[in-house]
C-alpha cells in the first residue's frame, strides 16, 4: 500500500482525457453520432426531393384527370389515387377479419399446444415471404385460373395479394395486444357468468382496441405502398376504374411504370404520385403513433 506515491494516487482518481481508453471513448462517441447522421440522411434527402419534385406539381387537375398518353403533356393521376384506395380497402376487408380472428384464437383459445406453435411459426415464415412471391402466388392461383367471372387481372386479385402481405402483421399485433389485457378482466367476466364468446367480444377485444388498431393502421400503410404484389395481379389501367373485377391503376404501379419511361411528363407524374403516396403513408404512420400515445 505504501508503494503508491500520493501524487499517483490523486491522478489515478481524476479523469484523464489523455488516457488511451478515454480517447477511444471520445472517438467511438463521435463515430456512433456520425453513423446516426448517415442513417437519418436518406430520409431527409428522399423527403426533400419528393416535396420539391412532386409537391410543385400538386394542382386540381392532378387529382381529377387521367394520365396522358406517352409523349403528351399534362394529365393527372386521379384513377391511380382511387385505385390505391380500392385495392387497399379490398385487402383490409380480407386481412382484418381473418387476422383478428386468428389472433383471437392464438391469444384466447390456444393452450400453447403444437397447433398454436405451428400457426405462430407459420405466421413468422409468412411474414418473411418476399412480396413478389405473393404476387406470383396470386397470379398462379387467381389470375391465371380466371376464377372471377373469367377475368384475368382484377383489382380483387391485387387486394388478395396485399391481404396475404398484411395478414401476418394483423395476426401478430392482435395476438400480442390481447395478451397485454390483464387476466383479471376476463376472469371477472367469466366469474359473473359470461360465456367465452361474450368475454372475448365484449371485454377482451375492446380493451385491446388501441394496440390492435395501431398494428392494423401500420399494416394498411405498408400495403398501400407495395408494388411488387400488384404488377401482375391488379396490373395497371390508363382509364378510370371499372369496378373491382377489372384491372385497376394504383399509385405505386404508376410510379414504377412512369419512372422508367423516357418521357418527361410521365416522370413528373411519377414524382407527383410519390408525393401523394408518401403524404398518405407518413400520415397513417403519424396516426398510428398518435393512437399509441392515446393508449399510454
Amino acid at each position, binding site marked *: 500500500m505504501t508503494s503508491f506515491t500520493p501524487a499517483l494516487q490523486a491522478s489515478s482518481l481524476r479523469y484523464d482525457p489523455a488516457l488511451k481508453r478515454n480517447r477511444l*471513448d471520445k472517438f467511438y462517441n463521435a463515430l456512433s453520432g456520425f453513423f446516426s447522421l448517415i442513417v437519418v440522411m436518406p430520409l431527409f434527402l*428522399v423527403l426533400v426531393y419528393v416535396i420539391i419534385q412532386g409537391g410543385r406539381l400538386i394542382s386540381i387537375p392532378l387529382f381529377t384527370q387521367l394520365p396522358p398518353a406517352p409523349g403528351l403533356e399534362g394529365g393527372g393521376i386521379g384513377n391511380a389515387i382511387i385505385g390505391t384506395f380500392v385495392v387497399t380497402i379490398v385487402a383490409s376487408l380480407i386481412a382484418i377479419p381473418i387476422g383478428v*380472428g386468428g389472433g383471437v384464437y392464438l391469444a384466447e383459445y390456444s393452450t400453447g399446444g403444437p397447433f398454436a406453435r405451428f400457426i405462430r411459426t407459420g405466421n413468422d415464415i409468412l411474414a*418473411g415471404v418476399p412480396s*413478389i412471391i405473393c*404476387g406470383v402466388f396470386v397470379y398462379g392461383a387467381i389470375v391465371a385460373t380466371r376464377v372471377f367471372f373469367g377475368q384475368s387481372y382484377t383489382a380483387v386479385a391485387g387486394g388478395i395479394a396485399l391481404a396475404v402481405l398484411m395478414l401476418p402483421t394483423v395476426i401478430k399485433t392482435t395476438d400480442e395486444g390481447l395478451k397485454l389485457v390483464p387476466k383479471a378482466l376476463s376472469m371477472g367476466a367469466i366469474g359473473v357468468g359470461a360465456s367465452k364468446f361474450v368475454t372475448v367480444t365484449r371485454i377482451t377485444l375492446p380493451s385491446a382496441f388501441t394496440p390492435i388498431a395501431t398494428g392494423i393502421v401500420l399494416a394498411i400503410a405498408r400495403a398501400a405502398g407495395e408494388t411488387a404484389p400488384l404488377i401482375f395481379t391488379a396490373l395497371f389501367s390508363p382509364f378510370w376504374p371499372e369496378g373491382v373485377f377489372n384491372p385497376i391503376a394504383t399509385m405505386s404501379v404508376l410510379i414504377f411504370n412512369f419512372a422508367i419511361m423516357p418521357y418527361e411528363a410521365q416522370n413528373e407524374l411519377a414524382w407527383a404520385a410519390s408525393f401523394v403516396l408518401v403524404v398518405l403513408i407518413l400520415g397513417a404512420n403519424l396516426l398510428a403513433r398518435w393512437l399509441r400515445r392515446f393508449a399510454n
Partner: protein
Amino acid sequence: MMTDQIQARFTRRKRPPADRIVDGGFRYLTIALASTVAIVLLAIFLTVFEGAQDAIKEFGLKFLTTSSWNPVTGEYGAFTAIYGTLVTSFLALLIAVPLGVGTAIFITENLLPLRWREIIGVMVELLAAIPSVVLGLWAIFVMEPFLRPLLVFLNTALGWLPFFSTAPQGPGVAPAVLILVVMILPIITAISRDALNQVPIALRQGSYGVGSTRWIAIFDVILPAAISSIVGGIMLALGRAMGETMAVTMIIGNSTNFSWSLLAPGNTISAMLANQFGEASGIQVSALLYAALILMLMTFAVNIFAQWIVRKLSLRY
C-alpha cells in the same frame, strides 16, 4: 325450508342451446381463421413448386450454375440472378450492420438528451415507412446521378480489380446495393435498439462500478448481452434484402449477362420476376417459378437460421 330455497337458486343450470352454439361456433371460427395462415403458406409453396416442375425436369440442378437466359432457344440458367441476389444482399448487410448497430447504440446511450434520441428513433421508423418504389424513383433520378462521379473514379482508380472493371453506365449493382442499405437500415436499427434497451440496468451499473468506460461497457458487457436479438434482427434484414423487389428492379439494370463488376448492370431473382413474369409464356414461366422457388427456399433458410441463432446465442443473465 330455507335450505331448499337456497339450493333451488344455486342448482346448476345449463346455458341455452343457442348460447352454446354461438360459443362453440366462435371457437371453431377462430380456429378456421388461424388455419388460413397455414393454408396460404402451403398454397404459396405448392403453387410455386407445381409451376416450377417443368423447368426442374428440363434443367435440373444445372439451372443453378449456368447463366444463359435465352427465351429464343429456350435455355435458362439462373446463376446471374442468384449471384446478384446474394452479392447485393450480403454487401448491403456489410454496410448496414455497423451503421444500424452504431445508430442503435447512439440512441440508447445518454449522449444526447432523451428528446433528441426519440426524434432520431422516429425518423428511422419513418424511413422504414417510405415505399420501396419511391426509393427506387429517388435512386434513379437523384442518387445514381449524384454517385456517378464516385463510381467513375472507382473504375479509373481500381479498374484492375474485376469488381470495378467496367465503366459505370447508370443502373448497376453498386447503386442497387446502396438503395438496399437504405431499405434494411431501419430494420437493423429498430431491432438492435429494442435489444439494447432490454439489457438489465444492473449489468451496466456493474460494469461502470468496476471502472469501465462507456465503450468498454458497451463492447464487453452490453453488446454481448444483446447479441442474440441483434443477430436475429440482422438475419431478418438479410431475408428482407434478398426478397426486396421494386427499388432494386428500378436501379440494377436487369441484365441477364453475368459480370463480376459491381459497376455493371446485374440482376436479382426478384427483379427478374418483376420484369419478366407478366410477359413470359411457356417454359419461361416455369423457369421463373423455379427461380422464385430458389428465392423462397433461401429466405426460408435465412429465417429459420435466424430463429436458431437467437436461441443459440441468448445469454442467461
